[in-house]
């Protein structure tokens, strides 16, 4: 079994204080640093920040936050979840993360993908219709910069490079870069073609339905002559002392997120029944440490995963509750998942666990 990695992912949501009032964006960012420092203290392997350009998320310059975390920690890996590569300049992305890798003594990592929102396209002057071409071209350049400099390269969306060295240099194999996919088969194949590990973003429905995508990835790796590579999963969740407490805290904030959109557009917010179904057998890992650990271990076995990232505390859940989830995830959930996976039953038993 490859080395297991357990991460935390966050978009730095604007949270509320104890009185239910939103706190300032600057405080949200400093709170995230505290959450990451705690994450290291309780043994979590990585802390990964998204990339959005909206009023409810403060993660528009995640690499700066990661650098601050680097200065306060020694071991935890520092990454993205996800970097919206299509609207970034790969050269700038390289310089940011090679520098982060240096200040953190080799702890930088990336997940590149589309993300589910497209705000960065109009903001930076890109056309969503070019999405596929943009991603393909930028991934090609990024991978070249990471793997072998100098780089000679030309494309359609930026100026060409001729025998170009970009500083700072990084040691071979540094800045592991995963490709995040949300279910597009072509994206799965692209990850394999570039020889990059696969990060599945599953935010709804039964996770076992992604088993064919895992198979597709493995077949595509073979077809492109690549060796076996790790597969990870990003899903939503919240951990509290008991199942009831976790549900009680997470549900109103989950609901609230969609109610805003519902008011604006005349949409229907999710029902509590739908939320419970996701918690029970879908893609939300909400509950006591034991409940969450059982579900994570089951999905890791079923999909042959070696990495699991918990996108923790959805919505405006206050900082102290977020801290409590970080602590329980690190101190109780992760050790329990490791224990469950070490005592791995036959694959048939694993499927049974998922089905319960």
């Amino acid at each position, binding site marked *: 079994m490859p080395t297991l990695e357990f991460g935390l992912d966050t978009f730095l949501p604007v949270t509320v204080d104890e009185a239910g009032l939103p706190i300032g964006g600057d405080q949200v960012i400093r709170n995230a640093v505290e959450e990451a420092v705690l994450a290291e203290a309780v043994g979590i392997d990585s802390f990964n920040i998204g990339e959005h350009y909206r009023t409810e998320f403060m993660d528009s310059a995640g690499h700066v936050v990661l650098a601050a975390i680097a200065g306060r920690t020694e071991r935890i890996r520092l990454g993205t979840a996800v970097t919206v590569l299509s609207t970034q300049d790969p050269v700038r992305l390289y310089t940011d993360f090679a520098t982060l890798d240096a200040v953190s003594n080799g702890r930088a990592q990336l997940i590149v993908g589309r993300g589910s929102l497209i705000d960065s396209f109009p903001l930076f002057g890109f056309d969503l219709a070019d999405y596929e071409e943009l991603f393909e071209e930028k991934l090609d350049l990024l991978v070249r910069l990471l793997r072998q400099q100098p780089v000679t390269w030309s494309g359609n969306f930026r100026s060409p490079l001729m025998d170009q060295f970009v500083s700072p240099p990084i040691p071979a194999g540094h800045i592991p870069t995963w490709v995040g996919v949300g279910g*597009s*088969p*072509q994206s799965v194949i692209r990850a394999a073609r570039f020889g990059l590990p696969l990060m599945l973003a599953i935010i709804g429905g039964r996770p076992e339905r992604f088993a*064919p995508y895992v198979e597709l990835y493995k077949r595509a790796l073979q077809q492109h002559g690549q060796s076996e590579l790790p597969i990870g999963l990003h899903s939503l969740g919240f951990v509290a002392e008991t199942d009831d407490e976790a549900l009680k805290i997470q549900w109103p904030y989950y609901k609230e997120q969609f109610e805003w959109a*519902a008011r604006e*557009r005349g*949409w*229907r*917010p999710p029902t509590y029944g739908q939320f419970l179904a996701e918690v029970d057998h879908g893609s939300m890992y909400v509950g006591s440490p034991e409940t969450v650990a059982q579900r994570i271990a089951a999905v890791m076995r079923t999909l042959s995963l070696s990495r699991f990232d918990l996108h923790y505390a959805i919505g405006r859940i206050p900082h102290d509750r977020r801290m409590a989830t970080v602590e329980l995830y690190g101190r109780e959930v992760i050790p329990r998942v490791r224990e469950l996976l070490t005592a791995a039953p036959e694959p048939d038993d694993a499927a049974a666990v998922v089905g319960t």
Partner: protein
Amino acid sequence: MTSVASIELAEGVASTTRPEVDDLSLGIVGAGKFGTTLARAAVAAGYDVAISGSGPAGDIALTIDVLAAGTRAATTDEVVRHADIVVLAVPTHRFRELGSDLFAGKILIDATNYWEPVDGHDPELTAAPGGTSTIVQEHFPSARVVKSLNQLGYHQLQEHQRPKGAPDRIAIGAAGDDHLAVRQVMRLLDRLGFDPVDAGPLNNGLPLEPDGSPIATTYSADELSKLVTR
């Protein structure tokens, strides 16, 4: 005019007025998560399915082999020639890249859903008072557009297929101006494992569109019939 499409009605119409009832060919344009999931469901229902991506058939060969075994990977032109019913399963912001005459005379099931945060701002689709399929019909004037198969997330399509008569069988609507086309789509829905509901003309498409919940609501045939007649 809206009626609950009981299975008997759909079958009765089929056997008396459509001699080609046994035409089990289906085309799917779009080999993404939805297209491949639908292909798998259609193959299981006994259909001969051809599917295309945006390029040559070889580009999607491995995807189809793994995700939709038994389906033929083809070019979009071949898919259109393959069947009288073709499903439009491309990302919504890309349907305008397809030629306006591509589906001439064909039944085109518009399974796309427009969601601005994902598809980008499209003034025409945002404003469409009769639902986005009316815009799709305008782009493909010679196609017999039926709005259907858009109500469920692709994973729900997989999880909710049930045999005829199952108590928890859910409904999928079909809205279109060509009644014969709507009935043929209803027959397809039934064979796929869903209770078909006639949702009226194409410009009655709004009730079939996503309501913004992260998890699409599922309905019984009775519930959906009420929803589309409101």
